């Protein structure tokens, strides 16, 4: 195996591990750890596919810094009244689109299931992560994670990040 192939396999492994760790933090409700996946000025956006495809800028959630993400976490845990639910993320292997120095662009399909107490599990939000990932001294961090979701209807509300 050539060293280039090995490097590529290693990168694939690292990004899939990053996504697995990201899913685990959300599914286990360790929300305080979620902003740490991003750079300080990283951006997290959840946007309907209809807006994305038409170039309309509105997003469901659009957080432009780790600070805003912390404000969202405070909202989830302290201020937004909502019925409790579990999330379960299933993230497909990432497709690496480009590598430019320390910056990697990649995408991965995701499905999030929602389970409410005494409820059946529902398909909650289905889409694609479009990511810009930066290699830092503290490991891989998202400079940008854009979640473009196909689901035409939010099932009432979306409280936690996906």
């Amino acid at each position, binding site marked *: 195996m050539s060293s280039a192939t090995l490097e590529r396999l290693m990168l694939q492994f690292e990004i899939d591990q990053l996504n697995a760790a990201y899913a685990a933090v959300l599914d286990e409700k360790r929300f305080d750890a979620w902003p740490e996946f991003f750079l300080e000025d990283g951006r997290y956006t959840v946007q*309907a596919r209809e807006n994305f495809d038409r170039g309309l800028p509105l*997003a469901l959630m659009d957080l432009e*810094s780790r600070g805003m993400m*912390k404000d969202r976490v405070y909202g989830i845990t302290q201020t937004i009244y*909502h019925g409790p639910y579990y999330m379960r993320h299933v993230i497909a292997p990432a497709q690496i689109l480009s590598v430019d120095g320390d910056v990697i662009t990649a995408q991965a399909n995701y499905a999030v299931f929602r389970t409410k107490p005494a409820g059946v599990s529902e398909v909650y939000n289905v889409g694609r992560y479009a990511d810009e990932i930066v290699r830092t001294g503290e490991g891989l961090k998202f400079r940008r994670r854009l979640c473009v979701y196909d689901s035409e209807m939010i099932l009432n*509300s979306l409280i936690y990040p996906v």
Partner: protein
Amino acid sequence: MMADQSLSRWSEPGSSRVPFWAYTDAQLYQRELEKIFYGPHWCYVGLEVEIPNLGDFKLSHVGERQVVMVRDRVAPKDRGTDHGIRVVENRCAHRGVRFCQNGQGNARSFVCPYHQWTYKLNGDLAGLPFKDGVKEGDCINGGMPEGFDLKDHGLTKLRVAVLHGLVFATFSEATEPLEDYLGPNVMPWLDRIFKGRQLTLLGYNRQRIPGNWKLMMENIKDPYHPGLLHTWFVTFGLWRADQKSRMVMDEHGRHAVMISRRNEGGQNAAVTEGVTSFKANMALHDDRLLDVAPEAWWKVDDPSNPGTDITPTVTMITLFPSLIIQQQVNSLSTRHIVPRGEGEFDFVWTHFGFSDDTPEMTRRRLRQANLFGPAGFVSADDGEVIEFSQDGFRQGGEGRSTLCELGGTGTEATEHMVTETLIRSMYGYWKKVMTP
């Protein structure tokens, strides 16, 4: 249980105690569709800016019926009087097919895929295959019967009215002109946001809420809850009971405007003591989320006090039966209620700005959109409590009802927000419409 009988079960006088069955009775809901959504009421279908070019269309709903809003040709001589917007039902006159499947797009005509019946943009039937039969030798096989006239077989056309770029439609010939329908109390508040302005479309959010459609109207006619349910409103002074506010309604009590002016927030025992959603020490990590910039148009002549002006920071307009228009600081949206049975509705948010907005203002409107919609810091919990309300109503119990008596049992306008008067006034009107 017949619906007629069920309404006569509302034995309480007045409209301050809404029976739970008003939200859960399936037959009553069918009558609501006929009498309200398909009756003499103007229903919102969209914004003119969504279909800027000839042939542009988008799908929308009036009640449960899907309609197409489209921009048609206008003859030069009619340009002063015809806005060119048509609304037709998305159902082929031939065999009932929902011929249009794309949510939006551009078309020269509408063609039903099943048998290629073709309609003009205004809904007129333009033609159909084999109308005059198919020639075989000297014979003509088939064809439509003698006397078949294209003119009699167009799509269902709705009446359309456009006000300041807002498009309304009605199935009923009896609906009064739109301006009369809205009335002089509500109109100044629509003028304030829309009159003479070109809108820009920022995008959509859609949510499906498992509750009766009226609960959403109630939510935006209820100034009592925002300073209690919504931490952001009470803590940052965006909406709370110690603000200068006004509750306005039309003469029938069906439409309303909740008007208020933000204050500095923070502690005020009268409205924060014991309120668990108030967070005295809450500060944002990134205060761009609430980077409010006053806009010149906020200030208008006060319709109630001629010669003085008024500068609200928030106006929440409910236009019966299915439209909410939001101005909360720099965030602007229409919210469209699409009922789906007695226990569910879709809620479609269309965010907009103005064509003379700077890029910074557009960014600000988009940032503040984080407060609203299905994931919003303040709106997500509205959908949740509506679901829990419907769950409670479904538990049934003849004679059980809600209790909307904050500020008494009357239906008058007020100069404060410690009241459920707008909910009572809507049900006063609803009772009248629904009583056979």
